């Protein structure tokens, strides 16, 4: 349920960025969510849809880019995917692995029309 708070923060940050940059209609917000991040993309999308009305990102689409879970091995240096949350090196089996992908919870970018485009666009 914390997705509601995260969606609120997303909109707040988006509005701050949009205030600083001249822009037309906001089309898309891109977020990157790792496989092992404690946020559910569907819940986040639902919360975003509920909260966006009347804000600077009203009508924009939330796009979620998923990142698979991956580790890098301290022993052999290889980067391998993690299956079933078993944290072992996929190459040499060592336990000394660090997560290098799959924990992301990032607001990447905003796509908006150019300001001129917006001025000319019919309502």
């Amino acid at each position: 349920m914390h997705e509601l708070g995260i969606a609120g923060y997303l909109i707040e940050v988006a509005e701050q960025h949009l205030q600083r940059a001249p822009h037309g209609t906001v089309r898309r917000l891109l977020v990157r969510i790792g496989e092992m991040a404690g946020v559910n993309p569907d819940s986040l999308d639902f919360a975003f849809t509920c909260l966006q009305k009347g804000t600077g990102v009203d009508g924009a689409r939330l796009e979620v880019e998923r990142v698979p879970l991956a580790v890098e091995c301290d022993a052999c240096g290889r980067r391998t995917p993690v299956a079933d949350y078993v944290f072992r090196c996929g190459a040499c089996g060592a336990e000394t692995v660090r997560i290098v992908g799959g924990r992301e919870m990032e607001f990447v970018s905003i796509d908006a029309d150019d300001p001129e485009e917006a001025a000319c666009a019919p309502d």
Partner: protein
Amino acid sequence: MHLIDVQTGLLADNDAIAAENRAMLATRGIYALNVMSAPGAGKTSLLERLLPLLATRWRVAVIEGDIVGSADAERLAKLGLPVEQINTGGACHLDARMVHHGVHDVVHGPSDVLVFENVGNLVCPAEFDLGEDDAVMLLSVTEGHDKPKKYPLMFRRAGLLVLNKMDLLAMTDFDVEVAVAAARDVHPGIAVIRTSCRTGEGIAEVAAWVERRIAAKRGRPAPPSPKAG
């Protein structure tokens, strides 16, 4: 099309306040522990047993998180320790902002050790850093041994797994070996201690683990005299 680069963490505000909390605690060398579990696993019962042991050496304060009510805070206040109750008002976890004032008060008080008792939940608390040094999680044997596979983030985050309600083990199908193996798949380095808050089994071991962590933070062994400043 106009692309605005944002590149910020979705929990950036929580992480920034958690970093402030951590820095405040560091100014006085206060060790902070975040205790997490599903509802009813025995967090408060563990603290009722554990904190008196820690309190023989350290001045301990507690920040108690619950959705509503103060039942747990009242139980812990009977130990004679300062307890601050935070009601999250429906939120499923403590976050760094909610505990910020409490941390501030602790830093300006006499305490050496701060314990956060989080809201009972295996999902959301795992993602919210409070500024603690260590995270401990309880798994009670009545919950089932499959939990590490179902809630991997929590098991990955915790430095210590407390397997609680061991006195009930015979009444359950809980397989300790399977649970420990599953926890170590998710987190190979996780420490595991078996406890019963009814019989007192394992509580001294948990206290010893915490003592080692406090000593590691302070960069020296725990002092022999109680509550030495």
